[in-house]
């Protein structure tokens, strides 16, 4: 387990998380995260060989819905909270010269 986190890594993670950080924040988060991650190393004291990962505590499977149409919100309610719109579309600056997508 990598023990610590440096500023370059913090910048990389911030990019993944789409957070613009100030230099100040990068410093602070490197320090905070390093301390927290060091604490989390504690988990390595435990031998977990053969232990199943537990993502959920629930005793249930197969929760399925019938394929029946229900009313949608309608464009007005859908766009009611939109920061910007063009007609009935959500509007953003052109995404063409952007590489953030997949």
């Amino acid at each position, binding site marked *: 387990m990598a023990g610590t986190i440096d500023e370059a890594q913090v910048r990389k993670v911030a990019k*993944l998380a*789409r957070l613009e950080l100030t230099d100040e924040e990068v410093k602070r988060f490197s320090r905070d995260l390093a301390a927290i991650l060091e604490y989390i190393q504690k988990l390595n004291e435990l031998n977990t060989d053969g232990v199943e990962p537990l*993502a*959920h505590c*629930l005793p*249930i*499977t*197969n*929760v*399925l*819905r*019938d*394929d*029946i*149409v*229900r009313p*949608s*919100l*309608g*464009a007005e309610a*859908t*766009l009611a909270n939109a920061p910007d719109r*063009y*007609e*009935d*579309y*959500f*509007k*953003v*600056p*052109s*995404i*063409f010269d952007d*590489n*953030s*997508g*997949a």
Partner: protein
Amino acid sequence: MNDLEYQVVVGLEIHVHLATRTKMFCSCELAYGQAPNSRVCPVCLGMPGVLPIMNRQAVEFAILTAMALNCRVSPYTKWDRKSYYYPDLPKNYQISQYDLPIGQDGFIEIPIEQGRTKRIRIRRAHLEEDAGKNTHTFGDFSAIDLNRAGSPLLEIVTEPDLSSPAEVRALAQELQRIVRYLGVSEADMQKGHMRFEPNINLHVTRNGQVFKTPITEVKNLNSFRSIERSVAYEIERQLDEFIETGKTLQMGNKKTFGWDDESQCTVLQREKEEAHDYRYFPEPDLVPVEVSTEWMESIRSRLCELPLMREKRYIQQYRMSEYDAGVLTADRATAELFESAVQAGGEAKRVCNLLTQSGLKMSNDRGCTMAELGISPDKLARLAKMADNGQISATSAVLIFETMTQSTDEPEQIAAERNLIQKSDAGEIEVLVDQVIADHPQAVADWREGGKKSAKSRGFLMGQVIQKSKGQANPKMVSEILDRKK
């Protein structure tokens, strides 16, 4: 151009839209071409506090398709989140399946040249939700419509077993036929129901050594023509590039291209495989799916004979041409119409001809399948019988076929009303034959003489008899009676 030997290696990723009524995780209607953002609810808009719920039909469609593709269907599957930021993906993660896809390790048979087939391995088939749509045509901004966001998609990934543009196209078309047969997708290319992403590279042999060119992926192709052409284009481009630069496949030098339909070439989108980090992890808002044996079997019972198998069987069983078999098996309902009509007593060849000639033309004109022309198998069988036993002529059969697509009348009724029943009264026909023989002594002489003019004269005499009957005499009988008088 050059003397390099090379092998084409293509794997295909296909996204198929499932034909459910509602979206994958909410109850919004699946709709194409509706007003923007009119089919959106808090769930598919990814609003704070919403939770997804699985659509049973989508899960069953996915399992059914996985079975048809000979996959191992996982008895236990779960959901994962795939993170990436894009404005048409409202939650900025896509609910998908990562390590436990619904189907794995299958194969699909595709037709190749001379009636042979090739088996292409399927790596996996998994369910996921689609994104919405971004539009850039309104001005210097992008506009987002979320109607499509959350639509159920089946992603199918093949192994890199395809070795020519034609094979890639054949697989795409065969898959379209299969999903339509199963009724799990309309697979309408125009509506973007199938999207293809080929991964292409070449294994080039030079001086006895094999070089692999860098893999390129072509994104979001949505027509058979464009996948075939883009693969062909990439083969040429990669070959040229290899000759020029000698570049070979390495970690991280995969490139992503788009296809420009206008200039018919691929366009570079991303030079380096950007450090994609999807951060997959188990979707905590959904519980796993366990597919019990009973559930699995009830889905399996909906499987049907797949088109390629059926096509082969028609060729053998009915001695049909490859072409006719292909037309009849193009969609499941038409194939079933054909077989039901044969079962109801229609002679196979006759039924086949009615469908592949009149039927195909009319369905093309009307933009529907032959089964949708509205002729029941029973009526089709009776029509075929009437033509077969000489009650009507082949020309009349076509006319009646056409009429049946527009009315509910019985074929016998139509034939009678339109005076299309052929005269088969031997006495009546004999009277006409005798008259014609009497009226045309020269032609009779030429016919009986048996010389060069014999066949032509016989044809002339036949024509005269038919004409005298106003077209209603059964030609077979006329021919018989005439020959008796030679």
